[in-house]
């Protein structure tokens, strides 16, 4: 099976989802950007909004709501959500740490940073800490090779990481305890 086809989570399908009024207005503005009959183009941006409104992941109910907004078949939403790696198809922690592990980062020590974070948080890449605070993800090249090693958390890039800086970041995030999303301004 292709790494680009991931199963969606149906076990949490009963969890209700509804877009906020502000999000709906944003969705409508996005749909208006495209020519008549081409509003499906807004699917990926709208999935980002849905993910941000659903604690950082896309449940079946969230995806069904997106299908409703866009007037699409549900499968058209599922097949796209499962293709793109920024869409989380399972519940995630308050913070998702996307640590770059691709070659240019590896040359500058990302293996050490990842091993340290795995030890510190007590999870492997892909896992979420027992307190629900952190999800650690090994991701592919984030275009920050000159400031490697690095990780992304929400909209922010944390660059030139060392073990000490990674520790300081974890402490800071833990103290702040508020969800970050890719869509944050």
């Amino acid at each position, binding site marked *: 099976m292709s790494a680009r086809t991931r199963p969606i989570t149906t076990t949490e399908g009963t969890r209700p989802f509804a877009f906020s009024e502000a999000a709906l207005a944003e969705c409508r503005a996005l749909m208006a950007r495209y020519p008549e009959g081409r509003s499906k183009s807004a699917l*990926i941006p709208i999935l980002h909004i849905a993910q941000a409104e659903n604690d950082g992941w896309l449940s079946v109910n969230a995806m069904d709501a997106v299908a409703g907004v866009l007037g699409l078949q549900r499968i058209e939403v599922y097949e796209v959500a499962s*293709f793109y790696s920024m869409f989380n198809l399972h519940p995630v922690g308050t913070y998702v740490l996307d640590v770059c592990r691709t070659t240019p980062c590896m*040359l500058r020590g990302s293996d050490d940073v990842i091993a340290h974070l795995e030890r510190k948080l007590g999870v492997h890449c892909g896992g979420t800490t027992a307190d629900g605070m952190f999800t650690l993800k090994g991701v592919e*090249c984030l*275009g920050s*090779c000159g400031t490697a090693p690095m990780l992304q958390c929400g909209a922010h890039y944390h660059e030139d990481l060392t073990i000490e800086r990674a520790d300081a970041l974890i402490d800071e995030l833990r103290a702040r305890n508020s969800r970050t999303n890719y869509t944050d301004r």
Partner: protein
Amino acid sequence: MGRQLLFEHINTPGIRGLEGYRANGGYRSVEKALRTMSPEAVVEEVKASGLRGRGGAGFPTGMKWSFLAKPPGVPRYLVVNADESEPGTFKDRYLMERIPHILIEGMITSSFALGANTSYIYIRGEYFYVARILEQAIAEARAAGWLGRNILGSGFDHEIHVQVGAGAYICGEETALLESLEGKRGNPRIKPPFPAVKGLYGCPTVVNNVETIAAVVPIVNDGGAEYAKIGVGRSTGTKLISAGGNIKRPGVYEIELGLSCDEFINSDEYCGGVDGRAFKAVVPGGSSVPIVPYELFLRTAAGEPRLMSYESLADGGFVSGTMLGSGGFYAYNDAQCIVRSTWNHTRFYHHESCGQCSPCREGTGWMEKVLERLEHGEGRTEDIDLLWDIQRKIEGNTICPLGDAAAWPVASAIRHFREEFEYHVRFPQKVKDPKHFAKEPFVRNANFATA
């Protein structure tokens, strides 16, 4: 320092905003094109410049533009490829976050040349914060009349929209990008038809890289002939190189094409040499281009000094050359293990394969497994030939170039560093330590029977 066409004002305070950008000569190309030139004349300047696509393929931009079909009554689109996902490449991000208006300006001028009234910037989802910077620049440009209806009273209307992706390397391939922009999975399309005939929404479309479109600004301002004076042979103008890996001064550099490779990697103006050890290998154009030993990066097989140009880096073909690619440059010191790096490269391609074509979908995963066991001291001698065989069967047998891109790093690693693969088979205990070459660098051409 060579001439700086895109980066001339990169460190000027306030250059990110419209006011600062305009005060430093910004939007002159729009004034010149819309007030004094025909669309065809702009295309001719781009042809005369010799500009080649800066995303990696190096296809002549003017020629690509001249292929654009113009059926009456059908809209045309310009789509800027800001998906920048080729490992080692971060030049477009650097440009967009520091001088967003140069991209907006280039898009207006280019869209005028192409007759496109709507253009899209497709930017990778991870660059959300850069998308916000671009959206702000677009809003500023619109408020100042550089976008919208009847720009500068010329009768030309134009709107730009930013579209974010969501994490998929394959969407940097232009037809996968168009699929994604239409709200679908990023599966590349079979070509022909090419996007110039049937692109976004089935309409004629030009897809160009961020840096390519930004380069249209100096080309229109100063003329294509002036741009073509910079560089060497068919490699004209300047190129952004994003440099990383084991060098002293990582960063993004604008070089005149034709700069010597030795100067680029060793001078303090650019990479500043190795980070305290010895150079071992170089990937000069993003992870998809062949990896070459440091000596072959400096000099061709014939002993000629190698230059940072499309032709010179490719001299020797795949036997001893490599490619300029996207300009995603990274260098290895002698603590690095080529088998580990090849495993890492291959894991990337397996993760990013869209899954449409069997040779790529299955072959990348197979190579990843074989490389993983080799790196962990669990490989067999036959594994090296097996890897060679698999990559040969992927190359050229897929819809899009991701298959080739996955094959070449493996082929070049085996071609140039075969002994290092053999070492992993013969000394499994030594390679169990993931940092096996940090303490004791691998010496090529040595009789490692005693190692």
